């Protein structure tokens, strides 16, 4: 039983442009990997009470000053003043 994978659609969702070689390789590899992990679908899960993780603590919603703004912006591929510069979202 082979899981149907639409590699171009998945690549689109993942925002990665694949070369045709990559698309071919992944079209061959992904179904085999997904077949392997699909064995979980046959498992009937008993009712388990416990949640997997400890409850997440929260902290006070208080503002503190940050000294790293300039260091962060120094890594920006393109910046303007205190902003990251991007291409138009709506073109």
């Amino acid at each position: 039983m082979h899981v149907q994978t639409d590699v171009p659609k998945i690549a689109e969702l993942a925002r990665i442009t694949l070369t045709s070689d990559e698309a071919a390789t992944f079209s061959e590899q992904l179904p085999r990997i997904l077949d392997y992990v699909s064995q979980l679908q046959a498992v009937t899960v008993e009712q388990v009470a416990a949640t997997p993780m400890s409850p997440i603590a929260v902290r006070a919603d208080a503002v503190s000053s940050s000294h790293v703004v300039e260091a962060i912006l120094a890594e920006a591929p393109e910046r303007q003043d205190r902003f990251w510069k991007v291409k138009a979202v709506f073109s």
Partner: protein
Amino acid sequence: MNLTQLTIAELQAGYRDRKFSCTEVVTAYQEQIAKRDGALGAILRQPAMSLDQAKEVDQRLASGSSPRPLEGVPVAIKDNLTMTGEIATAGSRILENYRAPYTATSVQRLIDAGAVPVARTNLDEFAMGTSTETSAFQPTKNPWDTKLVPGGSSGGSAVAVAADFAVGALGSDTGGSIRQPAAFCNVVGFKPTYGRISRYGLIALASSLDQVGPFTRTVEDAARMYQVMAGFDPCDLTTRREPPEDVLSGLSKGVADMKIGLPKEFFGEGVDPEIAEVVQAAAKVYEEAGATLVEVSIPHAPLALATYYIIQPAEASSNLARFDGIRYGLSVREAGGLSEIYRHTRAQGFGAEVKRRIMIGTFSLSAGYADAYYHQANRVRAMLREEFHRAFDQVDVLLTPTSPTVAFPLQAKIQDPLTMYLADLLTVPANLANIPAISIPTGFVHDLPVGLQLMGREWDEATLLRAAAFYQSKTDWHTRRPA
């Protein structure tokens, strides 16, 4: 006296008795790296500040200040842990020139305790791998046989300790990435309970599975590094609020009172029978000291790998969405509009394994598949956790092999992803169950190191480390070094 072969305690005694200085020790490690790393490829970069920091340590010691817990201890840091002003690539071209604006809490705590970072180590790209071969920059070789892999994803850190480039090293473990390379390289590799050590500054792979942990030669040194790093961090609210228990004072109390469980699912299909035999012999060492061996069962353990390879890629696909060419890292701007920047940056910046896992994760989370894949995997995960809890009602510690095989040749598994994933067979359960686990040297098969894995109750690092330290008090596998 070989300054690159001392434990933390021996270093601190030497500093106290003025047998040598921190500057001499750091210089010795730098010379060792210069001499041996060319053939091994474990080190990506050496921080410029190391000698200055060593001099500061010497000044502190000379001034009579009482030494901090890791005063003057040279350490290596996996390249997915940030340090202010230092490049952190996570093994990827997409971060090839990224300079971090902050230091990871785990690293900062080592530095505040007096440790001196001397190297940044190689890893599989974004910690995705079991051989360090998916690094965008270079493969790392196993010092026991340089035609073999050191394991992964923290291969560089494992080799750094095995080849005497540092006293201790930091790695990260999401499905075995500390324990498996430790087993392949004959060193100690320790993954604490999820929530013990802050993940702030660890470039995320899978946020419900990632943990930071130490590589060392001895369990005692791992315990010392752990004790310094563990504890609540307001920058990572998945860390435990309660202060960590002391794990050092009870370390040599022995195992006469312990019940050691051998889960049968970890000794069967998929595991090299010679490895299983070596590990069964290790269990006898415990029995001879008065511990009780108990056969236990984790019935859904055979499904752990499938569970892991749904949850981890799903969380990775979400975490790696931030690499979009906008705020940091590689940015392919010539392409066109905003959407093209995303697609081409990620196409050029990510390697094949990273793309593969992002796509598996994207699929598992997509409409129409999320329930059968991601949510089902989390249900099975909860079941696995429950099975481990029930096992720990009967025993204090679980004992298994760390890896189903010894180190394999470079290039042997890189063409077949599933074969590579199977290397994690015995290590992923501890990450899924959120329990602590450690790999310690336990002998050789075909002249290659074998790791003994011990797993403990959630939050019970003290018992786990005591069990591990006991084994090193009775054996000398961990003292062996590659030629």
